[in-house]
């Protein structure tokens, strides 16, 4: 089965948020709690010996997606052709009445706007853009060219990459489709 995923060079990321806002603009996600991509900042050490790393976090379109298994109404599905995990908002029962996907996901990837009847939404790896032959908007927006996306085995071949990095732990059960060039923390190598 074909599996699409992302590659992140954490050494490149400056925490600039270009990807975050580009995603909101492209997918018309209003300001608020729903973020398909966010930046996680890790700060370690005491003045003046510091280690700081930024990391974009999204849905990882897991090989074994917990959200798909958890959803009682099959609103979340994994596409056979590219392994992208998508959500059918019309079918979704909403966060207040259900929220099982969020509960199940180790990475808090399912997103909900504020309000009682908010339906699940999340990163869909820009399915609409692949259809036009373009990579996801975060990848193209990143001024640092820290991101890449595509078939996972191709990415692995082209870029190599590790399964874990500062701020991310690989969940064996889910098997997230993500590769990293990790940023090394000199204080806990």
């Amino acid at each position, binding site marked *: 089965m074909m599996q699409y995923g992302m590659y992140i060079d954490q050494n490149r990321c400056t925490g600039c948020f270009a990807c975050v806002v580009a995603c909101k603009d492209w997918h018309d996600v209003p300001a608020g709690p729903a973020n398909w991509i966010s930046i996680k900042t890790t700060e370690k050490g005491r*003045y*003046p010996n*510091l280690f*700081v790393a930024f990391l974009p976090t999204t849905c990882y379109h897991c090989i074994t997606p917990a959200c798909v298994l958890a959803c009682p109404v099959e609103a979340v599905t994994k596409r056979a052709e590219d392994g992208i995990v998508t959500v059918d908002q019309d079918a979704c029962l909403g966060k207040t009445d259900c929220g099982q996907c969020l509960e199940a996901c180790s990475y808090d990837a399912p997103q909900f706007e504020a309000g009682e009847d908010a339906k699940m939404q999340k990163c869909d790896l820009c399915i609409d853009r692949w259809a*036009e032959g373009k990579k996801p908007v975060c990848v193209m927006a990143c001024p640092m060219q820290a991101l890449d996306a595509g078939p996972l085995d191709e990415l692995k071949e082209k870029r190599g990459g590790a399964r874990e990095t500062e701020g991310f732990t690989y969940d064996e059960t889910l098997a997230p489709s993500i590769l990293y060039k990790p940023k090394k923390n000199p204080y806990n190598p």
Partner: protein
Amino acid sequence: MTEKHPDYKDKIVHTVCNSHCGGTCDFKVHVREGKIIRIESVPEENGRPSMCLRGHAYRQRVYSPDRLLHPQKRTGPRGSGEFTRISWDEALDTIADEMKRIKTVYGNASLLHFCSMCDPHLLHHVLAFHSLLCSFGGYTAPWGYISCEAYAFAKGVTFGKSSKLRYSGHTPEEYLESRLIIMWGWNPATTEMGSNMSLSLARAREKGARIIAVDPRHTDSAAAFSDEWIPIKPGTDAAVMLAMVYVIIKENLQDQHFIDRYTAGFDKFKDYVLGLEDGVAKTPQWAEAIGGVQAATIADLARDYACEKSAILGSSFGPGRSAFGEEYHRVAAALEAITGKVKREQYAPTVKDFGLLPPFPFPPNKVEEGAPPRWNAVPSRGPSVNSSARVNVSSLTDAILKGKAGGYPADYKFMWLSNNNYLNQLGNINKAIEAFNKLEFILVTEQFMTATARFADIVLPVCTFLERWDIMPAMDVFSTKRSDFTILNKAIEPLGESKSQLEICQALALKLGIAGYPDQTDEELVRQMVAIASETKKSKSEEASKKEASISQEPQLRTPSGKIELSSGIAEKMNHPQIPAVPKYIETWESLNDPLADKYPLQLITPHFKRRAHSQFDNLPWLRELQVQAISINSRDAEARGIQADDMVRVFNDRGEVRIPARVTERIMPGVVAVPQGGWYSPDENGIDYGGSANVLTSNVISPGGSFVSNTALVQIEKVGK
């Protein structure tokens, strides 16, 4: 210029972001049925910049519910924000009547017009206003850059000219070739300026360059790029750099060949550094006591910098925005010169003008006629900028308050502010309010009801750059790979009744009875400019290449000696104790040795913020949710005050008080606090600001060379209830 996208029925309009970061990033604007539906970036190529978060949020700016779409007339007291909608006709009649009245009663010099400087476009900018106001008999114009006057001054006295006006004076390509990069007060991950500098730094690091950050803050650039962070007290940069010079001279690491051949005044400078002039040797120990950087660290840095041929001192404008910031830039220039690291072609006179001037009439500004140059004029800045009839931009409010009695060239009665938010962005807001209240009439042309606009008598709604045509010249600021000019295509029609700056000037010209002001549309004018530019380009570039060839043969700079001046003839002539002939460390006012430090023991700096370009973009929801406007304070200083993360604190000094949350962090030097500049001033009835507007706390005194001093201020912090 526009193309149909294959899949959508959308129009894609290409333009260049016009925000005041100076970013000039390419925009691909998707327009559907006359509405912008999204804005896409153009990935980096040849060092051209790629859009930042603010560019990606621009759609929210265009369609913000806060956009001013109709002319507004003030109905309540100044600052109250009480306005009523009026017609364009009424607005323009009122403005024209006031301008005529004030001109007749007080003379043209009493009319102030300040426009932002260096926005990357030509037509809807300062020249449009300048032409109109000169045709009206003249006005008082500003001189000086808020961002980088210290830099311009220092380069002018040292090299006879500004170098390419980059934050660090170097091109992205140069960084790629460097093995040692010192980011001195420089945070390119946050302060983009017309090239993709951050990407170059990352690539340089991947190629093995060592990067060192010298900064009171552990910036995001320090986090992303640096191998080492050297914290330094604000205002002491010149001292630490002088100690580097000391080590270099003592250990004989200077490039004597370069010094002998291309510089003048080395011996005099050396005498000062070694202490022969004033009895104080500028040793690393001396600098450690001043700047808080360990002597051994300074000495190592000096050796590494001097011995690595490809080393780059990336000295930013930020440390220059302090008292005697000129000296910091001058010492930095000297450090580069004595180690032979100055690329002389950067300073050689060039001809870059391809005749890209808007076809406005430019009668002389009568207010400046016959006025001698200012005492601190630097010849390379040109006669108008040097005119003593002008007011330093950062002294605007002081000039209004004091007028002739305070030594300013005139008493000021009328002010027109365009493309800026100067109440918010100049020092000491409470003084600025006093000043604004003293004026008889204030006109503000704006997109939003900013702090400044709230003090206007009339606010005219200006459209965004996506709603008009413009053109951007090839400026030194931008990457060498830019073409001669870039057209800023109009994407949509102006919203509501908003008008472009040009249309406003055209309408006022009619009301003021000014003949000869161009009446073409912006699109027609842009086309005309392109046609003229293409014609003159060829002859000019032939001339330029001839000139450049002759320069490389005979390297003469426009300084009195024709060389890089380590002892400046221009500075010496100014004959001012705080503008010495050789670059020196001069202790700032409001330093920690100031008696005021008993009351206000923390040094405030006011850096840039990712989600704003100065005060622009502060109101956009997509951006506001990303970063909290907070004061950064070291955990030790916080602990001593019983302050915990996110506690509400009062930050205050004799000039005012701001209440914002505390960001307790390890990423700032103890004794230093930082409020990102540009938060929108939002006072309560007691004048306490809750918008986090840093300039409530800064002063409106300028440095002798004309620099804004936004990083020289002492404050105290106390916890207030949650």
